[in-house]
């Protein structure tokens, strides 16, 4: 089924999201009426990551969810019955000006990504998009990624972790990236940019069941999201404003953060690249993801 359909034909839809900058378009779209135009009433359920969102979508508690691409690829290799429906967020593609990157302390001996070899690097989750793309950065800079010791650390802890020397470098995203840089941190790699041009970092997805049973709803949702993405991409000030409504990022930081790109198409080539990187790093347990099956 597709959420509750009211007598007047309006579909109530729950979307599982992580309350970060990346999902600003859907909040903006909701505000702008891009969803209600299409007889969809969206509500956002903020979870802390895939652990809560994917099962919610699979079981039909949420109709749609937001997840990073690598997680979706992993899910695909395990035949989790899900499918992407729209692009989520993409890298800006500009070296040094992306919404995620590897940072070190100001006085760190690490100058380039190649120096990361053999160092302790914080990522938010192991065996996921962070470590595979960082390895690629190291490779591209001519270093050997084998010796990197990745450790898990929640994004919000990274500024302190770096400061206290608990790790040598951290792969951070906004707003922590801005925060670290403001405290004197130095960017040594833009890993999303290094991984693939125009890398699609995350996507919206639904269960194959819903996609099969209520193709119309999925279509309308995709259209609404795409309109939201496009709008967000061209109205950065409104994005900065709406972020304040669902996060607690203060106004100054909101003005400073680097916003990601919100293209309306999933860059399939970049996803293939991600899949290859992941396979090389062994995060799919020996399987190879079938990217086509995941695509809308």
């Amino acid at each position, binding site marked *: 089924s597709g959420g509750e359909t009211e007598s007047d034909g309006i579909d109530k839809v729950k979307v599982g999201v992580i309350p970060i900058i990346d999902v600003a378009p859907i909040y903006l779209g909701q505000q702008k009426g891009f969803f209600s135009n299409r007889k969809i009433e969206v509500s956002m*359920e903020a979870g802390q990551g895939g652990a809560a969102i994917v099962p919610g979508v699979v*079981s039909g508690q949420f109709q749609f969810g937001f997840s990073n691409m690598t997680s979706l690829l992993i899910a695909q290799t395990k035949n989790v019955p899900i499918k992407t429906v729209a692009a989520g967020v993409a890298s800006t593609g500009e070296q040094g000006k992306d919404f995620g990157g590897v940072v070190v302390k100001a006085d760190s001996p690490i100058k380039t990504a190649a120096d990361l070899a053999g160092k302790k690097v914080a990522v938010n989750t192991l065996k996921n998009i962070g470590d595979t793309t960082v390895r690629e950065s190291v490779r591209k800079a001519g270093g050997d990624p084998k010796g990197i010791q990745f450790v898990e650390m929640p994004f919000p802890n990274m500024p302190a972790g770096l*400061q206290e020397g608990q790790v040598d470098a951290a792969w951070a995203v906004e707003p922590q990236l801005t925060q670290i840089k403001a405290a004197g941190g130095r960017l040594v790699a833009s890993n999303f940019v290094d991984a693939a041009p125009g890398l699609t970092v995350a996507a919206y997805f639904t269960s194959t069941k819903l996609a099969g049973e209520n193709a119309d709803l999925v279509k309308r949702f995709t259209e609404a999201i795409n309109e939201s993405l496009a709008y967000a991409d061209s109205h950065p000030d409104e994005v900065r404003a709406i972020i304040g409504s669902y996060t607690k990022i203060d106004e100054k930081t909101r003005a400073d953060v680097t916003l990601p790109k919100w293209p309306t198409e999933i860059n399939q080539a970049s996803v293939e690249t991600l899949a290859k990187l992941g396979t090389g790093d062994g995060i799919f347990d020996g399987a190879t993801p079938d990217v086509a099956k995941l695509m809308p």
Partner: protein
Amino acid sequence: MRGLLGLAGLLVIVEALPRSGLVDDGYLPPTSRIVAALGDEVVTAEFWQAVADTLTAWVIGLAVAVAAGVVVGVAIGAVPVLRAATSSTIEFLRPIPSVALIPLAVLLYGTDLGSTLLLVVYAAFWQVLVQVLYGVADVDPIADETARSFRFGAWARIRHVLWPTALPYVFTGVRLAASVALVLAVTAELVIGAPGLGKMIAVAQTSGAVPDMYALIAVTGLLGVAINLAARAFERRTLAWHQSVRGEVPA
């Protein structure tokens, strides 16, 4: 009264630590800034809604866990065969963390209250159960023999002998369960995103709003203090006969 002294001490330490530069005030802001953030929070309706949501999950979850824990505990404790037959299962289930059940909860209830309740009840139930089991085992044999010699039925023995003996243990169990329930309510909100204080903490955390985060954590802690005060007051009234409440040993 003295308790206020203790809390005041904590406030002073938290104020002093970052001010003295021992810890970076970006990670542990001084009391004054936390209080200011709290001040900003308490005027919003959203905040009170979150407190209400958390407390609702807590109250319902705790009530269910305590009722089930007491009934099951007394039944198992009073019937040796039941106890022998269930103990291995109990020991098996107990250490399974509620958090590991999150996917299951989301699967069943999404981000509804049900999800939070499942986790809260699962975690708090064992606290009560184990205490009740130990309490039941603590019945004075002579008191029990007295009841038996007067031919008290099973129910009368439970009500008049077993229950009063187990009561202090039950209280400890309830106090443990009360905070575990609060902890799990907040955790569930934090991870699953069910509405409540936990969700607000999660948002503050991912946004790097450190004083807000501490303010909300403090609110959780204060809820705990309030709950304990209530429990103590109730205990003083119901356990007036008990050794521990009879009055502190003089001289």
